[in-house]
């Protein structure tokens, strides 16, 4: 197994308004994009983020080799239990996701 961050070009996350976070995974090339779009299923990401399936959207942008996930914030930005005002650190969860080594 290897980490997602070691396979792809860049992973970033950010608020998309106070109620959403969006994660962009730039795969870098068509082969990596083809495998990552398969590996990162909505079900897999749902387990990672512990959000309801209807609160999670997956997008594929072939022209950019990007797989993107947007999801409702479990804690609304800046609420008493929110710990990440800009939603930029949740990308770490994706970076450290273990991926079968044969995909790398």
């Amino acid at each position, binding site marked *: 197994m290897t980490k997602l961050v070691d396979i792809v070009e860049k992973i970033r996350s*950010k*608020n*998309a*308004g*106070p*109620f*959403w976070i*969006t994660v*962009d995974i*730039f795969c870098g090339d068509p082969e990596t994009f083809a495998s990552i779009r398969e590996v990162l299923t909505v079900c897999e990401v749902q387990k*990672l*983020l*512990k959000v309801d399936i209807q*609160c999670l*959207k997956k*997008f594929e*942008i072939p*022209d*950019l080799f*990007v797989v*993107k996930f*947007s999801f*409702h914030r479990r804690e*609304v*930005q*800046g*609420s*008493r*239990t929110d*710990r*990440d*005002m*800009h939603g930029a*650190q*949740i990308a*770490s*969860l994706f970076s*450290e996701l273990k991926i079968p080594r044969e995909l790398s």
Partner: protein
Amino acid sequence: MSTKVLVPSGVLGLGFDSLALENGLSYKPDIICIDGGSTDSGPFYLGSGTSKYARDVYKAEWRELMLARKSINVPLIIGSCGTCGVDCMVDFMYEITAEIALELGQSIRVAQLYCNQSVNYLTQAFEAKKIIPLDPAPDIDQTKISKFSNVVALAGVEQIIEAINTGADIILAGRSTDTASIAALPIMNGENIGGAWHGAKIAECGAFCSTSPTSGVVLVEFDKDGFSVEPMALDARCTPHSVSAHMLYENADPFLLFEPGGYLNVRNAEYEATSERKVRVSGSEWEKSEKYSVKLEGVIPVGYQTVSLVIVRDERYVENIHRWVSNLEQFIKKKIFDIMKLPSKDYHLDFRLIGLNAVLGGLEKKENIPTEIGVQLVVTADTQTKAAELSKLINPFLLHHPLEEYEDYPTFAFPFSPAQIDRGIHYEFGINHVMILEDPMDCFKIKVSEMIND
């Protein structure tokens, strides 16, 4: 014919490359547009009607932009004045503008666009079922509407165009969509509407759409078919990849962007490098909505907070930190009830284990044992006095609570005296709705004034 918009940076206060600005002016842009804020820094700024950056920084950068504007005699717009775009921050920018105009001897016409919404107006709109929830939306009702400290409606191009039409040299706009100030003049001039919104989205963070994000300045040239974008720092480049990737940034949907009056669809957009540094975009589409609506942002004060910090270095306590915190929390809640007669629903305690899982909380997957852990306790209560009193009651236990009942009292590391800090009011975002308007100016106001400094 085309319309050239110069964007000095993603937000006033972040800085820009002065040489790049000078280069941008040599292209004779038709307008200079800069953003002044967003909700990205959290609910406090909207709640308190204050800005995130220092006044001196705003003044230094705004002075440079006012000089730039004067040198080519075109309008200068700032959207979302002072981080949150509430009325008093529009006035704050007006005051800074007046000071600079006096210092530079500039005579200018200034338009102020106000976006605050009154409780009365919102209540009427709510009763008329004109306030529509987005996904996800907190519940709202008339009682809740009366509790907001500030509610702003986000202006789109219609309101900015109204301000441009006053003949103002400088437009100080309250809360506006990130794109509105950039898209306004191109749309007013009859350029391609899809292209105007798309180009505005690409340029809204300045040079973020280029290979040198910190250089700030970009020039967008809009026409009847689309737009071209080029960074003004000579060592920066826009590429089809850097430009199209910016559509994803801070946007939940990579193909659609919802704006007042409709949405932008970039599914069929085409990106072409027309030079090493410049990208041409066409095929962006604008879908007009049936009804005109503007998005609302509002925050509610939910209490006052006091924050304490203690650092645990003792190896056994670090290894057993979850058990320690859970014991401590139980013990404290009982103590609070015994002494202050407060049930736990009357206050909120949030322990954050810095070094272990303070950012991700329950989502954290790593289970390493660190050298030390910062235990940050955030107490929220309905008054500052109560939050502070609760923190003082908790203080000795944060310092000395033992892991086992019959062991000697440990003493952990308080990094400050006192160990707690009053944080003031805590605000939370409480609305994610749009409001339907008959006329785009229905809930916005424009004030025009002349600053004469001969």
